[in-house]
């Protein structure tokens, strides 16, 4: 059970939407797919779901090539397209039954019931799709993507337009599925990636700029070498008091009572800064270590190119 993408390239006319993208995902992985708008996230997902063909390179889902074994791939794959298109003139139950029949499931009626329960659509199940709110439509989209118990689930912005409660519920659903399946989803919400994924791929201008385990990114984000200290008003700060601290590279006044301390190493120098302040009879009222968030990493990787 895996997704393997090897040097995938897609050219639209003269524009290179994907440029030799390679990554692989295995069972139990939830991969967060990040990138600015127009980076190539949706294009990658559309190729993986056999909707559009790639220009070159190959993509394999559970060992089956998306180009040559398209029908077999589509059988094991659940796909939620961007904007979640649905037949608005159908009833929820009718629609799910229709999708189940397209997958030629033997136990269509039972699968539809299970999906309605899993996605919490019970109260709405007899309504027309055009009558339900966006959050519920998103659930219908998820239900149709999972109705055939796919081994691989690909979702393009599955949580857009949901309220915080629905967000939490949908995340739980995805997390449960992710335990025994392969899940790829794209999103713009960084917290979601931190909360849900164990792998992150950041793509920019058709190229992969980061592909890593989420733990590693979190570890990176804790080590920061900039510390801001605010002293009590009226303190007279002599920067010489801190000179003896090893690794301290620079001290910059930010405003009257605040200073930014930059260290050169990976070592945490907060305790030493505190001790030095006490020795210099300076009263600290706030000390803050700037931590790199996913947003910082994202911005760094997707702007300076």
């Amino acid at each position, binding site marked *: 059970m895996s997704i393997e993408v090897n040097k995938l390239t897609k050219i639209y006319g003269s524009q290179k939407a994907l440029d030799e993208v390679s990554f692989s995902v295995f069972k139990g992985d939830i991969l967060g797919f990040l990138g600015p708008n127009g980076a190539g996230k949706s294009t990658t997902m*559309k190729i993986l*779901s*056999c*909707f*559009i*063909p790639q220009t070159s390179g190959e993509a394999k889902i559970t060992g089956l090539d998306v180009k040559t074994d398209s*029908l*077999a791939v*589509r*059988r094991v*794959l659940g*796909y939620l*397209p961007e*904007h979640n*298109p*649905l*037949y*608005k*003139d*159908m009833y929820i139950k009718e629609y799910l039954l*229709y*999708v189940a*029949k*397209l*997958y*030629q499931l033997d136990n269509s009626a039972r699968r539809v019931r299970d999906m309605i329960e899993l996605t919490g659509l019970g109260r709405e199940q007899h309504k027309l799709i055009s009558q339900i709110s966006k959050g519920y439509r998103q659930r219908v989209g998820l239900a*149709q993507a999972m109705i055939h118990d796919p081994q691989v689930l690909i979702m393009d912005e599955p949580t857009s337009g949901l309220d915080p409660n629905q967000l939490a519920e949908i995340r739980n659903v995805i997390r449960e599925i992710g335990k025994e399946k392969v899940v790829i989803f794209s999103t713009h919400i960084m917290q979601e990636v931190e909360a849900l994924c164990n792998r992150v791929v950041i793509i920019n201008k058709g190229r992969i700029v980061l592909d890593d385990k989420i733990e590693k990114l979190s570890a990176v984000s804790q080590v920061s070498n900039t510390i801001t200290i605010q002293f009590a008003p009226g303190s007279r700060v002599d920067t010489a008091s801190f000179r003896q601290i090893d690794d301290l590279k620079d001290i910059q006044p930010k405003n009257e009572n605040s200073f930014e301390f930059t260290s050169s190493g990976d070592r945490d120098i907060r305790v030493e800064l505190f001790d030095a302040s006490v020795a210099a009879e300076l009263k600290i009222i706030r000390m803050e270590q700037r931590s790199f968030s996913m947003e910082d990493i994202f911005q760094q990787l997707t702007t300076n190119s």
Partner: protein
Amino acid sequence: MWTIALKETSSFFSSLAGFIISGVFLLVMGLMLFFFPDTSILTGNYANMDGLFYLAPTIFTFVIPAITMRFFAEELQSGTIELLATKPISDFRIIMGKFIAGLFLIVLCLLPTLVYYYSVYQLGSPKGNLDTGGIMGSYIGLLFLSASFLSIGIFASSLTHNQVVAFIIGAFLCFFCHWFFFYVSKVPAFVGRMDYILQKFGIDYHYSRMSKGLIDLKDVVFFLSVISVFIALTHFVLRRRKW
């Protein structure tokens, strides 16, 4: 394939459009054949249904593209084509599913016209004095013509995500395939040289032959070719995925 056919049929009747299209078709037919004196069977003095089969292609030029216009245009417009195309079903089966649904709807539109047959049968003097064989042949011809128009309409629908545009292209192509070759053969440059050959390219020529109750394999092959060509074209357009 049958799943799609069933879904298309039910969504046709779940909206008012389905009833309106088939209702308008039957209303126009009824008015033309039994009320307006110029085209009425009653004032025509002959116990036949030629009027129906003469008018049907003209009306179908509008009715069939109206049925088919949403088949792909709506899927392209709403993006649901992405759902359909990523399900384990081939493009060809998607097209055929819609084709079958369209054919079913047309048969449903045509079934009530059997009442006309019964009326004319009863009104004949002596009773039952009408060319049943000819009428059967005409119905078969009309079915082939409908199927051809249907494949044209489906093709038109796959070209655009705008249903109105799909309707207009469909109606034009139906008109073109049915009458163009007949009328162009009347251009002086062709008369007496290749007018007969030109006419053979039009649906009109083969339809009128069938209307005489003559079911020739050549005509059947012609209709099947038209249907195959437009279904193949639709398949080609869908494969290109340029939306």
